[in-house]
């Protein structure tokens, strides 16, 4: 158990809490925090701390952390918890980690293991496996942003969320881009086609919106009481437009 904010709400989800929990707080490795060209964020790092990251390449992750839930929850909820809470389609950090090409360092019975975030998300994880940290590349000329849509504003779970990370050449054109969406399907995912549409083009509100239209085609949105599926897909172009507008407007963070 990290911050416990997910586990403590088990009964609200109709789940039964496990009989035994082990507090991970005393393990130093899980608290590591290094910001460099490779940023390593320990699993016990809180959303409040992640929100303070300032590198443009990590702006999506910082924004996802800063806009997730509420201050008193962000002070406690961790990166590792956000990755291990399942099923949790609305987890804010996950799409940001996907767009940022994060790798996940794990520890299990067979020792240490590092895996790409996509692979990590692809299948249920062994119960005894620990998330140790996320390792995120932060190369120069990488910019990123994150937007989430809530029905009421404030810290509700998002109806849809989008993370965009792009590598921009000196001439201002996009060399590579990754679009990831959260809360739309049962697990956050990359929209590869949407990212490709940005390659060779400048990153603007319009090009980002166009990528959002592709993302809306690419996904299979889920239906629940929070929002109908068509709506989750329909808002993606606008969310990407907001990211594009913010980046084009000079901000490194959207």
């Amino acid at each position, binding site marked *: 158990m990290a911050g*416990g*904010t997910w*586990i403590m*709400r088990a009964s*609200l989800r109709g789940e039964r809490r496990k009989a035994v929990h082990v507090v991970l707080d005393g393990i130093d490795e899980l608290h590591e925090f290094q910001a460099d060209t490779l940023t390593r964020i320990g699993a016990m790092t809180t959303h409040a701390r992640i929100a303070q990251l300032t590198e443009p390449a990590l702006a999506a992750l910082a924004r996802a952390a800063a806009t997730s839930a509420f201050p*008193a929850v962000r*002070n406690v909820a961790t990166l590792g918890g956000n990755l291990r809470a399942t099923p949790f389609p609305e987890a804010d950090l996950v799409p940001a980690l996907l767009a940022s090409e994060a790798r996940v360092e794990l520890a299990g019975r067979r020792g240490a293991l590092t895996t790409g975030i996509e692979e990590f998300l692809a299948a249920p994880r062994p119960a005894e496996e620990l998330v140790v940290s996320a390792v995120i590349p932060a190369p120069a000329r990488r910019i990123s942003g994150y937007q989430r849509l809530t029905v009421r504003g404030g810290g509700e779970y998002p109806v849809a969320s989008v993370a965009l990370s792009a590598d921009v050449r000196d001439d201002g054109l996009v060399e590579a881009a990754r679009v990831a969406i959260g809360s739309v399907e049962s697990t956050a995912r990359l929209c590869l086609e949407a990212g490709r549409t940005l390659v060779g083009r400048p990153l603007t509100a319009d090009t980002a919106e166009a990528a959002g239209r592709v993302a809306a085609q690419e996904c299979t949105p889920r239906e629940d009481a929070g929002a109908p599926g068509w709506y989750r897909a329909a808002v993606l172009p606008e969310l990407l437009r907001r990211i594009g507008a913010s980046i084009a407007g000079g901000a490194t963070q959207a």
Partner: protein
Amino acid sequence: MRVAFRVNGVPVEADVGGMEPLLEILRDRFGLTGAKLGCGEGRCGACSVIVDGRTIASCLYPIVLADNQAVRTVEGLAAADGPLDPIQDALLEHGAVQCGACIPGVLMTLTALLERVAQPTEEVIRQELTGNICRCTGYHAIVDAVLDLTTTTSE
């Protein structure tokens, strides 16, 4: 298991299962009923207390995590027979307290904020209060009280 921590500066111990919410222990074992159970899911802020200098939702905070920590609740802001805390005074002066259910949580959020940022902007204050729901609703008066307090004391 036994947990030992400080509540408003006083060392306390409790025999617990470990996963009881801190809120439950504060209210039912120690009689500190300022923090309240509202939503039970970390969005209303009625249960806000300060642990290790940070505001947390005590309804979602397993008591085991409080071991060795310093917990502060609204009861610790002013002595029973002493003057109120300046933030409490400011809220009263601005008519920011109506039914009062949210106020213990609001006070702890504001206390932690002002310890971190001496003169927060209106935007920062509002952002920090997004997790403290007031249904009366006195948000404007609460924000004005903080702005008034922080600009007055700095001059």
